[in-house]
């Protein structure tokens, strides 16, 4: 086993062990790993199974059910476009088209250069500021297609977007 594999396992074990709430389950552990690592590598499934006493099949059953889990590393930037009915009425499709064109993607997925991941979100919870999109955990409301394009252009040569401290 290479040292990077071992380092990854360490990160995963750390994430599973440092959950703040008293009740630890397969689902809570998977969420903790997804938060810490950004996706669920095969090692995560194994470590969660070991920690919770579940079988690997059981853990995989839970992981494959919830749509927020990823099984491949995400791109450097993640963009989530809300397609809830409110956002839909206020122009989400146009925003999605603009984002897809800018990234050269036909739909959800990752760009070939692994810089961007696009996800459709059923509801970001910001209906009063629709249409909304989430870019690297920063929420933007009342977005226009033009603004979405500008946000992505601004990221093309920079590090992941950070919220101001």
């Amino acid at each position, binding site marked *: 086993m290479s040292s990077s594999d071992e380092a990854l396992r360490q990160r995963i074990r750390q994430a599973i062990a440092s959950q703040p709430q008293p009740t630890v389950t397969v689902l809570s*552990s998977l969420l903790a790993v997804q938060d810490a690592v950004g996706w669920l590598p095969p090692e995560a499934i194994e470590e969660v199974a070991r920690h919770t006493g579940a079988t690997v099949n059981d853990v995989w059953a839970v992981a494959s059910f*919830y*749509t*927020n889990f990823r099984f491949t590393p995400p791109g450097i930037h993640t963009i989530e476009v809300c397609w*809830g*009915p409110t956002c*839909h009425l206020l122009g989400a499709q146009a925003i999605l088209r603009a984002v897809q064109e800018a990234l050269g993607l036909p739909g959800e997925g990752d760009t070939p250069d692994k810089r961007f991941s696009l996800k459709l979100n059923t509801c970001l919870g*910001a209906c*009063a*500021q629709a249409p909304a999109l989430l870019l690297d955990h920063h929420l933007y409301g009342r977005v226009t297609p033009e603004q979405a394009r500008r946000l992505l252009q601004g990221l093309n040569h920079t590090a992941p977007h950070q919220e101001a401290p």
Partner: protein
Amino acid sequence: MTTYATLAQEARAHWAALHERPWIRVGTAICGKAAGAQEVLHALRRAVERRGIPATVTPVGCIGLCFAEPLVDIQKPGRPRIFYQKVTPHLAATLVEDYLLQDNPRPDLALGTLGGRVEGIAPLEEHPAWKPQVRIATRNCGTVEPANLAHYIANGGYQGLAKALTEMKPAQVIEEVTKSGLRGRGGAAFSTGAKWNFLARAPGPVKYILVNCEEGDPGAFNDKGILESDPFTLIEGCTIAGYATGATKGYVFIRHGHEGPITFTRKAIQEAYKAGLLGKNILGSAFSFDMEVALTGESYVSGEETALMEAIEGKRAMPRSRPPFPAQVGLWGKPSNINNVKTLSYVPEVVARGGAWFASIGTEKSKGTAIVCLSGQVARPGWYEVPFGLTLRRVVEDIGGGTGTGRPVKLLQTGGPLGGVLGAERLDIALDFDGMAQAGAIFGSGGIIVADTATCAVDLVRNLVAFCQFESCGKCFPCRLGFTHMLEVLDRIAAGQGRPSDLEAMRTIGQAMSLGSLCGHGQLGFNPVHSALRFCAEDFRIHLEERRCPTGACEPRLSLPKRTRPEPVGGWYARHSYAHH
């Protein structure tokens, strides 16, 4: 030992001290953040620091007036709060200069005042979006710092729990809640007192109160709003529910990724433990109660009460068959009650002020207030707490300010994606559980999405059905296959390629779904189509007969998320064989 009297005394002193210097509050809940409130908060802090003004700058939650975000209010000692809307970082600096340094309250920039009058500024109480409101569950939202126990207690918090523990037996608490007429705000509108009674009567030493804040319905954001703005009102309500029913622990069930509600609820629970308001022997009584936050992954059905229990247990969120009902066999096989965030957030005031007081608000069968989330083509989107009985027209036109697009209302989409749509001709029905159900809609958890005449009903319904299809948990095949089939039919109709038999086909599918599904997701699955056919049949007719979209809203090639689950079984699973485990 901490007593309520000492806590209250300290809290009031802290609150009074806050008002001895200028206090600036910035709404930084999700709606504020989406509008740029974080930048405004930093600008205010910088401006106050640069000018050496001894003012307090506090991020608060959402007062419900989301249309005005970023919303800032400034309160000078002995003066009313003055609210400023759509504040930019530049405007923030201007307000510090003009009002804090020059004492010019800038009436030209103000939205309104609360708690008194200022020359040239209309009181918020006269604003059409504020005037009809009676704020009970949302009374502190946007006024207190979320998860600040002193702020909560200084505004009357924990009076209800203190009263219950010292003056009332558990059965009396249930009696008071029954008398109040409080009904569940999660959608089913079942009597809260009756529900608590089932749990109180269930035998066994371990029982649970499960608080539902999954709130995956697009168009609803009031549960998250309460937890992000005033989590203590829910925590106190849940603790009272625990006392009344003999429950030992409460779980607050929140969807992963909603950082504000999760962070503030966790913090508030910690604070409550520190103050002796959770844990062993609460406020010196014999009553002990624990609480924690349980997260779920993205799955709409995990908000269904039995699926919710599966998710807390860490499994796939798929509904269980009933009976047995959760009050007998619930979480980990123990008796459990599932209550919505809003329902429990009323409880502290109901207990403190009495059931009769609550029952005096609202209508005959829908007591108290409705917390409605207005969004869509509406001039003033936000969330508003109004007495039941107001007409939908008053909600949409007075509070919401109409469509704001110059076009009239065409339909309302109420109560979540499964609630269906209501035609504009029903705007004069009253906001209440039963009246809305009779009109063919669901009040649900309070979401109202307004659509004007530029909307095509086929397009909107297709979006709703696509959501339901994506979110079907897959356990019951009529739901899993039914939504997929219905979406195919709607895709065809939207593209102008519908067949004469299509409407009948959807009816047949819908009937099978309602008969053959375990939970509301499949049972109500035909609702969006059914209600749209009832109120907007013309849109379907034009699509089917003239093979065009009446408003041009329909895009045949809609981008939709991946429609099947589980996802990447082939490649991933095949590469990693676990045969040896």
